[in-house]
C-alpha cells in the first residue's frame, strides 16, 4: 500500500526521544514507511505507544511514555494548522489516550526540527525540559513548584529572556497527580482530557519550553500557497465567519438547549431553565474583551473574558467554550456567568480538565442532595445546585487533593470505588466522564461515546447535531455509518494537525486536506487513501485497548442513558432504549469488520501495525 511512494517533503525527519531517568537524548529518523502509514500527530503517537506497551504498565510509572506530536501540516501555511496531540496510556482510564491542544506549541516543536517528542522515564528532581532548536536540557524547576499554569509560563519566558518561546505547563493539579489534570499552554490552550498533565507530573516535569527557528519544508510550496490562498478566501467569505469570531463555541449553548441535550444538574436533565444567563449573548454583551485564535486560524473561536463586578471581579480568562460553560454552568446548576468564568479560570490555572471536573463535582452535589453522601463525606460543605462558593471550594480541593477532593482527584473509577452508591449517578465510559452532549436522545451520540477509544469524549465523533437535524428517517446502518465516518475523519485531522472546526462548523471541504498533504509531501493521494490510514489508527487504538483488557462490555454508554428519562425540554420523558443500542452496537462491529466481541480481524491488526 505504501509501495513505490516517496515522501519528498513535509517532514522534519526526526523524532526526539528524551529519557528523563538517564538524562539521555537521541534522535530517531522518521522512516518512509512509518510516515506514509501513520502520517503524524495522533497516528505517530498511537504507534509509538503501541510499541511501548508492556505487561502491568502503570500509567503514572516511569515505564509509561508520553508522545507529543504535532501533525504533519502543523505550522505550514494551511488554515488552522496549530494542533498538537499528546498521546499516552491514561491514568484516568488505564487505556489508550490522546488529547490535543491548539495554539503555537506544536508549530514551535516542528520549527525546532522535530516531528514528535517522546518522553521516557522519570526525572530524579522536579524539572522542566528546555528545547532550544538542536539543544536539549533538563533543568531544575524547583522555583516553579506549586505555581499556577499561567504564572509558570510567564516566569519561564522571563527567565529564558524570550517572549517568543512557547511553553506547555502543568498546574498544581498535575503536580498532585490528579487523574484528569491537563497540559496548559498560552494561557488557555489545553490538552484537557485523559490526564496528560498527571503523566507529566508523574515524570517530575513541570513544563516544556521550546524555541524553534527552522524552516518548515513543503515539497511544492507554490501549490500549497495556491491551495491555502483559496482556502483562506473560502473561509473568510463564509457568511457565518463573523459570528464565529464573535461568539465562537459559546453559540452552542443555546443550540444545545433548544435541541434538549445540554447537561443539566449532573445529566439528570437535558434542558436548562436559566440558559439565557450563561449563553453566548451574555458573554459577548457583558464579559468579552477580546478574541483569541490558534495558529493561522481565521475563525478565532477563543473569547477573552473579564468579570468587571461582583465577587469574582478581576477574574480574566480565555474561554469558556461550550463544554466548559455547560459542565461548569448548567451541569452544576450555576446560572451566573461570572461564576462560570471563575470555574473555568480555576480549572485552567490549577491545570485540570473542565469536563471531568464539572462532571465529578456535579455527581457529588447530586449524591449529597439525595442523601447518598453524608455531610462528613463532603468535608462539612453543605452542597447544593448552583452554590458557586462551595463549587469553587471543591475545585480547589480536587487540585490540592484535600479531603473529598482527594477522592474526586482519582477520577470516576476512584469515586465509584470509594462511594459505590454513586455509580448510577456518574456519566462515564471506560472511566472517563461524558462531555456536554446528552446521549439519551441521539442514539448515534450514545454509540459514539460507547465506542470511543478514550472514553466518553464528544470530539471522537460529534454526530448528534447531524442526527437530530436530518437523521430522523435514517436506517440503523446509516446511523452507524455516520459514527464510523466521524471516527475515521477525526483521527485524520489530528494526524495532520489541523482543527476540525472549519470542516464541521463551516462546511470546509475535507477533500482539500488530501491536496494539502500532496503539496506538502509530494505524494499524490485522495481523501479515501488518507481515510484508510486514519481508519487503521482506530483499529490500532482498539488493539491497544484490547491488550489492556477492554471488552465488549466496556462499549457501553453511561447507565443514565438507559435508566433516567429526561425531565424537561423538547425530549422530556425520553431515554435511550437498551435493545436499540445493543442492535446498533452489533451493526457497528459488523461494519467495522470486527468480530462479535469487538476485536478487529487479524488482517486489520496486521495492516495497522498492531501485530
Amino acid at each position, binding site marked *: 500500500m505504501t509501495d513505490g511512494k516517496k515522501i519528498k517533503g513535509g517532514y522534519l525527519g526526526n523524532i526526539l526521544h528524551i529519557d528523563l531517568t538517564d538524562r539521555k537524548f537521541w534522535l530517531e529518523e522518521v522512516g518512509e514507511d512509518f510516515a506514509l502509514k501513520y502520517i503524524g500527530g495522533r497516528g505517530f503517537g498511537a504507534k509509538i505507544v503501541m510499541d511501548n506497551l508492556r505487561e502491568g504498565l502503570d500509567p503514572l510509572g516511569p515505564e509509561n511514555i508520553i508522545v507529543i506530536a504535532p501533525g504533519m501540516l502543523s505550522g*505550514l501555511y494551511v488554515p488552522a494548522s496549530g494542533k498538537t496531540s499528546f498521546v499516552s496510556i491514561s491514568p484516568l482510564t488505564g487505556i489508550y489516550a490522546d488529547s490535543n491542544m491548539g495554539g503555537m506549541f506544536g508549530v514551535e516543536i516542528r*520549527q525546532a526540527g522535530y516531528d514528535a517528542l517522546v518522553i521516557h522515564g522519570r526525572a530524579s528532581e522536579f524539572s522542566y525540559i528546555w528545547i532550544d532548536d538542536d539543544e536539549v536540557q533538563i533543568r531544575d524547576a524547583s522555583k516553579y513548584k506549586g505555581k499556577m499554569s499561567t504564572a509558570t509560563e510567564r516566569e519561564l519566558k522571563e527567565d529564558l529572556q524570550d517572549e517568543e518561546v512557547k511553553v506547555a505547563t502543568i498546574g498544581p493539579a498535575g503536580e498532585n497527580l490528579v487523574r484528569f489534570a491537563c497540559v496548559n499552554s498560552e494561557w488557555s490552550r489545553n490538552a484537557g482530557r485523559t490526564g496528560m498533565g498527571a503523566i507529566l507530573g508523574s515524570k517530575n516535569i513541570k513544563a516544556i519550553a521550546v524555541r524553534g527557528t527552522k524552516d518548515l519544508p513543503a515539497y511544492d510550496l507554490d501549490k500549497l500557497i495556491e491551495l491555502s490562498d483559496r482556502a483562506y478566501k473560502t473561509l473568510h467569505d463564509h457568511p457565518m465567519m463573523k459570528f464565529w469570531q464573535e461568539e465562537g463555541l459559546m453559540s452552542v449553548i443555546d443550540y444545545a438547549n433548544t435541541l434538549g441535550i445540554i447537561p443539566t444538574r449532573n445529566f439528570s436533565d437535558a434542558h436548562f431553565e436559566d440558559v439565557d444567563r450563561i449563553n453566548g449573548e451574555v458573554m459577548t454583551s457583558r464579559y468579552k474583551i477580546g478574541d483569541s*485564535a490558534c495558529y493561522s486560524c481565521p475563525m*478565532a473561536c477563543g473569547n477573552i473574558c473579564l468579570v468587571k463586578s461582583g465577587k469574582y471581579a478581576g477574574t480574566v480568562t*480565555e474561554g469558556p467554550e461550550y463544554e466548559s460553560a455547560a459542565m461548569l454552568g448548567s451541569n452544576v446548576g450555576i446560572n451566573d456567568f461570572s461564576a462560570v468564568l471563575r470555574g473555568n479560570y480555576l480549572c485552567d490555572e490549577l491545570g485540570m480538565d473542565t469536563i471531568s471536573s464539572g462532571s465529578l463535582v456535579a455527581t457529588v452535589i447530586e449524591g449529597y442532595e439525595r442523601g447518598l453522601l453524608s455531610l462528613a463525606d463532603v468535608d462539612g460543605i453543605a452542597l447544593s445546585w448552583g452554590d458557586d462558593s462551595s463549587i469553587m471550594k471543591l475545585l480547589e480541593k480536587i487540585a490540592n487533593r484535600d479531603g473529598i477532593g482527594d477522592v474526586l482527584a482519582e477520577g470516576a473509577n476512584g469515586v465509584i470505588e470509594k462511594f459505590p452508591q454513586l455509580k448510577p449517578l456518574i456519566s462515564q465510559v471506560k472511566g472517563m466522564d461524558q462531555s456536554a452532549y446528552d446521549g439519551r436522545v441521539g442514539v448515534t451520540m450514545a454509540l459514539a461515546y460507547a465506542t470511543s477509544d478514550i472514553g466518553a469524549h464528544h470530539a471522537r465523533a460529534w454526530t448528534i447535531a447531524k442526527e437530530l437535524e436530518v437523521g430522523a428517517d435514517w436506517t440503523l446502518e446509516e446511523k452507524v455509518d455516520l459514527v464510523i465516518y466521524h471516527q475515521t475523519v477525526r483521527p485524520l485531522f489530528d494526524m495532520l494537525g489541523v482543527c476540525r472546526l472549519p470542516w464541521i462548523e463551516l462546511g470546509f471541504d475535507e477533500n482539500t486536506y488530501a491536496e494539502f498533504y500532496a503539496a506538502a509531501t509530494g505524494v499524490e493521494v485522495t481523501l479515501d487513501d488518507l481515510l484508510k490510514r486514519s481508519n487503521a489508527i482506530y483499529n490500532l487504538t482498539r488493539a491497544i485497548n484490547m491488550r489492556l483488557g477492554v471488552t465488549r462490555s466496556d462499549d457501553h454508554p453511561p447507565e443514565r442513558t438507559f435508566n433516567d428519562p429526561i425531565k424537561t425540554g423538547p425530549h422530556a420523558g425520553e431515554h435511550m432504549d437498551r435493545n436499540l443500542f445493543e442492535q446498533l452496537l452489533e451493526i457497528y462491529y459488523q461494519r467495522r469488520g470486527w468480530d462479535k466481541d469487538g476485536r478487529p480481524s487479524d488482517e486489520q491488526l496486521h495492516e495497522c501495525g498492531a501485530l
Partner: protein
Amino acid sequence: MDQVAPTSSGFSRSRALTIVPERCSGCRTCEIVCAIHNNKVNNPKKARIRLLSLYPHPVIKMPIVCRQCKVPKCMDSCPSDAIYIEEGVVRIDENKCVGCHECVVSCPFGAIYVHADMIAPFKCELCGGDPQCVKACPKNAILYVPEHTLGQSNRLIETLKYAHLKEMEYFEHGVEKKLSYAEIETGGLREKEKKEKSEGEA
C-alpha cells in the same frame, strides 16, 4: 483598497500601515503570509511583522511592524550607512550591512528582526505598496490607510465624547429606530437674558 503607485515625487508613501490591537486575535496569519511572500519560506520566524501576545495582565495582542519613520532611528544608528529611504520606504542594503544589529536595538518599536540564517536584519518594506498581511488578516486588525487619516479614530472618539450624545427613539415604517445626536447650545442666551431680567425686576 486603492493602491498608490510609487512615484519619485516624494508623495509615494501617502499610505501607512497601522494596527488596531483591539481587533487582533493573535492568529499569526500575518507572520506566515509575510514570510512566504517576502522570503518564499514557511517560517514565521522570518516574518517582518511579528505578534507579541501578553496575558493575563495586561491582556494584549499586538502585531509589531515598521512605521517607516521619516527620521528613522535605525538609519541614524547604522555605522555602515546600509539603511536608506527610498520613496518613503526604509530599506536595508544587505551588501552594506555588517550585521552589527545596532538598528535592531535602536528601533524604538522593536520592529526590526533577525534570524540566525541571515546576516542582515530584516524589516517591513510594505511589499511594494501592496502589504500582504493587510489582505490576509482575518480580523481586519492591520490597515493600510492614507497617512492623513492616521489618528482619525481617536479624533472621532474624542468628538463623540465631547458631544455628550443624546438618544431618541422613533418609528419608521413601523420599525423602531434610534437616533443619536449632540445637543448644541441653543436658546441659552435668550433664556439667560430673560432670567436676569426677571431677577432684576424682583
